[in-house]
């Protein structure tokens, strides 16, 4: 089995004359946490949506386990879990109803759905299980959304800015959960614009204006740039890119 679960080559998305993502190349290694870092509008969400088949690519190739799946995005969908910026939950449904729904459309059998609902009771307080999701705090919504994204038992998890709008404590807890998932063998692609989250990942790719301007392992990059924080690196590479 190939070391890379996904490889993208020359991935491009154009909207008329505007190029949202410009011929990017990278791979996602099996079992790693890869972070796409960049300011708003850098092309992080567009890249995730193209890989998951939610957006049609303008040009380029996507390989799954070495096989070209550019024209068959359903193959990637089958092994993917996805969590969007807004947590992708139905606000009028309760946490239990949301889980039942996502488990149901993931093809789980009634017995499995029951089990999953019982599992949810372990991570969400009992008193919150039967109230509408719209009334829940962001941290709880985030937990339910991650739980729901895992219901289809995906090999790879795409998390699009999963920590936006939550407080630092919840963010830290969330990353512990991500580590736990990694320990179970899941591959995770996370997009974020929070610089302090980079240290949690195995590799980082910095996107700016639809192009990759830096990539590597966080520790090595910190050594290379001789700094303690990613903020300096980020500012420097963005400034260089803007000059160019």
């Amino acid at each position, binding site marked *: 089995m190939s070391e890379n679960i996904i490889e993208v080559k020359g991935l491009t998305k154009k909207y008329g004359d505007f190029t949202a993502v410009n011929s990017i190349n990278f791979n996602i290694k099996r079992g790693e946490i890869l972070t796409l870092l960049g300011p708003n509008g850098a092309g992080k969400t567009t890249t995730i*949506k193209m890989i*998951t*088949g*939610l*957006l*049609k690519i303008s040009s380029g190739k996507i390989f799954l386990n070495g096989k070209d799946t550019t024209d068959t*995005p359903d193959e990637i*969908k*089958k092994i*993917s879990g*996805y969590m*969007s*910026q*807004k947590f*992708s*939950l*139905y*606000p*009028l*449904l309760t946490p239990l*109803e949301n889980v*039942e*729904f*996502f*488990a*149901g*459309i*993931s*093809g789980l059998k009634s017995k499995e759905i029951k089990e999953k609902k019982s599992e949810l009771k372990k991570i969400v307080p009992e008193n919150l299980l039967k109230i*509408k999701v719209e009334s829940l705090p962001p941290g709880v919504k985030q937990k339910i959304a991650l739980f*729901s994204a895992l219901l*289809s038992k995906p090999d790879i998890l795409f998390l699009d800015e999963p920590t936006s709008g939550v407080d630092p404590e919840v963010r830290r807890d969330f990353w512990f959960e991500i580590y736990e998932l990694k320990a179970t063998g899941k591959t995770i692609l996370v997009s974020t614009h929070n610089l302090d989250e980079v240290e949690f990942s195995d590799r980082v790719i910095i996107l700016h204006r639809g192009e990759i301007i830096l990539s590597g392992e966080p520790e090595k990059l910190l050594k290379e740039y001789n700094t303690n924080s990613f903020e300096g690196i980020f500012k420097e590479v963005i400034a260089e890119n803007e000059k160019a």
Partner: protein
Amino acid sequence: MKIYYLMKKELIEILRQKQMIFMVIVSPVFQLLIFGYIATTDVKNLPVEIINISNSRYSQEIINRIEKSPLFIIKKITSRYESPIKNMKEGKIKAAILFRDSFDRKRNPSGFPDIQILMDGVDSNSSLIAAGYFNGIINDFLLTEFDKKGISVAVKGKSLLRYNPELKSINYMGPAIVAMLLTVIALFLTSSSIVREKEQQTIDTLLISRLKPVEIYLGKALPMLFVGLLDMFLGVTLVVLWFKIPIKGSIFQLLIASIIYLTAILSIALLISTFTNSQQEAMFFAWFSMITFILLSGLYTPVENIPWGLRWITKINPLQYLMKIIREIFLKGNGMKFFYKDIFSLIIIGSITISFSLFIFKKTVSK
């Protein structure tokens, strides 16, 4: 089975929104009651001014008949000529009848009674109906007089009215209003269903799930079909029990026609929901479609009255066919052999709209 969970979710979302419950249950009942009473072309209590210069026995006889009619209210009777125009302009009267002095046969040897009926033509339909009633009263009086004098009339005509002998417009309008409400509910509820998922960003989760686009499409459409049929049932019950309009034809055939019709209208609504980006935008297109469908459906005016250049549009308007079918079933008790062509047209429209709408949905979700 996966589609079951999507349908269940859709129904829960409808039930959790108070405004949706209002739209699905309260609004159709309320609108049907309101429309049932106001959407009438019946002439009742028409205010009339009478200028009786003739002041003869004959003119008095006709005035008595007008007075007895529940259709008219005599606001003023005068024996001197006064122009009724001012009162008509101020809206105090809708009609004026002038009996000239030549009306009396003794002073009018030519034998031609001279009665002038002046109508307020703003509401041309009601004016024509009222003028017809006046002429009927006058003709009836003349025939009675001829009979008394032993004068035989060569040609006597008598109209027989079938299917709606009392000429009640509610009998004609009631079933059609049910069809109209079905359109309104189906268009407005469904047109927001996909676009709402876009706004909530849940559409991506749906698309990345194991659901195929066709399953998502059907999972959205089927609960709305159920809601539409529920409203149809509510509307028909109200028309039958409240307005006392019996269904003379087959309820089963009405159900079949409604399902085919709803297929067409739901696919149009889902098409709107697919290409719009906000619920507001979807509401605008739903409103525009609704107005077009209703105006070109024959609800108020027969389709045959629509100018030739525009009449072809009615051929692609599904509401026009349901309107015709529902009236055939309610009023005439006709069966499939009388409206199979309309059913066939609905099937064609439904097939085209659902294919196109599904094609656009599939194309949009993979753009």
